[in-house]
């Protein structure tokens, strides 16, 4: 049981840290993505990128 406690505690820490970090990165860089998306839709160009 102790092994499971350690296992889940480690994964909980990893998942919480990853959740928080990805939120920060996505928040900061996501605004740029939204602008590019709207520009791309307005331009009505090819929807395939390399």
């Amino acid at each position: 049981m102790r092994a499971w406690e350690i296992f889940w505690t480690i994964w909980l820490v990893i998942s919480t840290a990853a959740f928080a970090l990805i939120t920060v990165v996505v928040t900061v860089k996501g605004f740029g993505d939204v602008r590019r998306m709207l520009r791309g839709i307005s331009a009505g160009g090819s929807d395939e990128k390399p």
Partner: protein
Amino acid sequence: MNFAVIDWVIVIAYLAGSLVIGILAKKFVGNLSHFLVAGRELGLHVGIATLAATEIGTITFMYFAELGYKAGFAAFCTAMISGIVMIIVGRTGFIVSRFRELKLMTVPEYFEVKYSQGLRIVTGILVAVGGILNMGVFLKIEGQFLTIVSGIDSKYLVAVMTAILILELVYTVLGGMVSVVITDFLQYVLLSVATILVTIYAVNTAGWENITNKVTSVMGAGGWSPLENPRFGWTFLVWQVLLWFAMSSCWQTTAMRMFSTNSPTTAKRVMTWTGVIFLGRGMLPMLWGICALVILGTGPVGSDGSPTPMLNGQPIEPIEAMPAMISQLLGPGVRGIVVAGMLAATMSVNSSYLLGWSSVLSQDVILPIRSKMGKGDLSSKAQILINRVANVGVSLFVMFWGLYYPLAGSTYLYLTITGTIFLSGAFVSVVGGLYWARANVTGGYAAMLAGAAGAIIPFFFLGWDANITGFCAFGLAAAGLVLGSLLGKPSPPALSRATP
């Protein structure tokens, strides 16, 4: 009412902001591709946000918290499986990469590419039925959360949930995927902040040592090991792995995000990073459920083996324990942010699911049936109108089913079984179609029908355990595909590529 003025200001500002932004996005909708897949212009970061927001709702927090309350840390296995499977799908591009290359807009559309228009219609019907039944319980569960945390009188539940549904419907119907993606992005930020806040408050109040001791004293080894927990075991774990491969690749709302990305490479990266988020998506609300067990789990042991949660001396349902705990923990301002975050979670899921199932109804059932009846093609504008009408229709069903269907047992299991109705057959048929040259139309029909029967009959009519039902559905679907394909005539692809 638990709400202070500041809480109302935060919530109303969020709701108004979402509506305005969602409506403004309408001007970017020029054709069907914009409406359904945002013109396939989704970049990595907004792709991650919209995929995560689509699959993280108040319903998610509620059912995971309930699972955590009843099964302790052993429940974490479901979160790990979902995250790891998504990362594998993302890294390998299993199904998702090929789907994106084909420029699809719906999952059943693939069935016309590989198999036949008739199978597309059958699959479309099963996808729509399973998906709408699945979504049908969201409103009630979400409403329970809202009334408990905010303290609104439950007699206003129907009105409150109807108002929220109408708000989502407005911007989804008007702006389609463009509105949904932009609002999803903002909702993702807000719900993530709320998630972290609740976690800090809950763990700080319950105390880590109390948490581990309570799980051990109430559940023993079963609270830690999924192999020793009677709810789980090997059959459950294997079924969950199959289910998550199927959900990552063939769940319409997830797949629509893949279809909307600007390239197959972006689709893979979005799936991979969202898989990492999914670890926390499951574990954190389960942890809240465990904290609720510590703080409120003081009543007599119920029929499911877990202590009845008690609030102000009154027993409540295990699914209500987490929101009841939150209502006790949070002060003014923070409560407003958390409720706004949960509303954000609700709206992101509901808007995406409304768009997902209505697009299947319109693109894979109504329009192909029209085509089979010999009617001519419709303009993009007309197709968008049909999508919008289907959207309203789905909303009306969800409103009535959600508020009146008596959900028994674990919410998580109801949701996974209704999903399995079409996922079992769809996943098997897609895998066969992409990776087995021998798969043909007969096999596809057999897979879809056997998978659906394998989920519906055992669970709804024979009362079988959900684990066995899930296993049975996938097994029957696979057997149907193989036997049907071997016995049926070889069939060339119906279309060389999807409709652009």
